C-alpha cells in the first residue's frame, strides 16, 4: 500500500517545465513570420476633375519642361530623346536656371513640368520618371532650406519654413491626358 502511494506521488503531475519552451517556440515563430507591412509610397495630389483640358499653349515655351514617355518606355524631354539618368539634373537646372539662360524657366515660380504618357506606357517607367521629377524638387527644396534656414528639408519641419520654401519653389507638375497608344 505504501508502495502504490509513493508511485502516485511520482506520476500524478505532468512536467510543465517544457511548456515555456513550446510557448517560446510559438512566440519566435510569430515574431519571425509576421512582417509589419510598411506602407510607403509617392504622395501625389491629383488635380480636381474638369471637363475641359487645361490650355498650356498660352504658356511661354521656356517655362515648360515637357516630358513624354511613350508606349516603348522611351523618354522625350523638351523635344529630344533622353535618358532617365540625367532627368533629375536637367529638371533641377531647368527650375532654378542658375545661369539665367533664355531657354530655361524665368523663375522657379513660373516653371511648369508637363508629364505626358501613352496608355501603353509601363507603370514602372512612369513611376520612375515621376520619382525623378519629385527628387529634383526635393533636392532643390533641401538646398534652399539649408541656404535659408540652415536645416535640411523634411516633411515635418516647421510649417512656416516649409511654406516659405514651397512658395519660392512651388511644385507644379501637370499631367496631360494620355494618348491611346499601345493599350493592351
Amino acid at each position, binding site marked *: 500500500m505504501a508502495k502504490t502511494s509513493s508511485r502516485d506521488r511520482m506520476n500524478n503531475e505532468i512536467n*510543465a*517545465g517544457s*511548456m*515555456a519552451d*513550446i*510557448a*517560446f517556440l*510559438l*512566440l519566435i515563430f*510569430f*515574431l519571425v513570420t*509576421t512582417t*509589419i*507591412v*510598411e*506602407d*510607403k*509610397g*509617392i*504622395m*501625389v*495630389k*491629383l*488635380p*480636381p*476633375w474638369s471637363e475641359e483640358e487645361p490650355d498650356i499653349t498660352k504658356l511661354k515655351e521656356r517655362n515648360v519642361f515637357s516630358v513624354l514617355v511613350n*508606349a516603348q518606355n522611351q523618354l522625350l524631354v523638351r523635344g529630344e530623346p533622353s535618358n532617365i539618368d540625367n532627368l533629375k539634373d536637367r529638371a533641377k537646372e531647368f527650375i532654378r536656371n542658375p545661369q539665367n539662360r533664355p531657354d530655361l524657366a524665368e523663375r522657379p515660380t513660373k516653371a511648369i513640368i508637363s508629364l505626358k*504618357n*501613352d*496608355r*501603353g*506606357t*509601363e*507603370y*514602372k517607367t*512612369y*513611376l*520612375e520618371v*515621376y*520619382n525623378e521629377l*519629385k*527628387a529634383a524638387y*526635393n*533636392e532643390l527644396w*533641401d538646398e534652399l532650406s539649408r541656404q535659408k534656414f540652415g536645416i*535640411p*528639408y*523634411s*516633411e515635418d519641419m516647421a510649417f512656416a519654413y516649409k511654406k516659405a520654401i514651397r512658395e519660392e519653389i512651388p511644385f507644379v507638375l501637370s499631367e496631360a*491626358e*494620355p494618348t*491611346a497608344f*499601345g*493599350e*493592351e
Partner: protein
Amino acid sequence: MAKFSKKRGKAKPEVSTASLPDIIFMLLFFFMVVTVLRDAELKVQVNTPRATELTKLEEKSMVNYLYIGRPQPRYQELYGTKPRMQLGDKFANLNEIPIFLEKHKVKLPEAKRPRIISSLRVDGEVTMGIVTDVKTELRKAGQLKVNYSAKPKAEKFTRN
C-alpha cells in the same frame, strides 16, 4: 554539520517556473493581436516598383487600398490575364470606385474625411491605361490625395 547540510539539500529552494508558460503565452497573444495581417486576400499580382521619394502612410484607418494587376494564375481562367482592379477582396469595375470610396468614408468621423488617402498598389508591369482610368475616376469622385505605393530603393537619396 553533515546532518544540517543534508536537510537543506532535501528542501530544494527553487523559484517556481510554473507561471513562466503563462507569461510567455501572454507575450504570444500580445504579438498575435498587435500584428495586423493583411485584411484583403490579393486576387491580383501586385509587385510594386521601387522608388526613392517615399512618404510613409501614418494613419492606417485613413487609407483605402486599390490594387491593380494581372489576376493571379488561379483566377486567370475566369478573369483572363488582362490587368484588373481589386477593391476590398474582390475584382471590381471602374464604376464601383465611388461606392467603394463612400463606404470607407462613412466609417470615419466627418472632421477626418478630408485627410483620406487612396493608396494605389499597382504592379510595375501594368500599362498606364487602366491606371489613368482609375485616376480619372478618383478625380471625378473628389478623392485627390493619392499615394503610389512603392518599395524603397537601395541607393536612397539622402539629405545629408
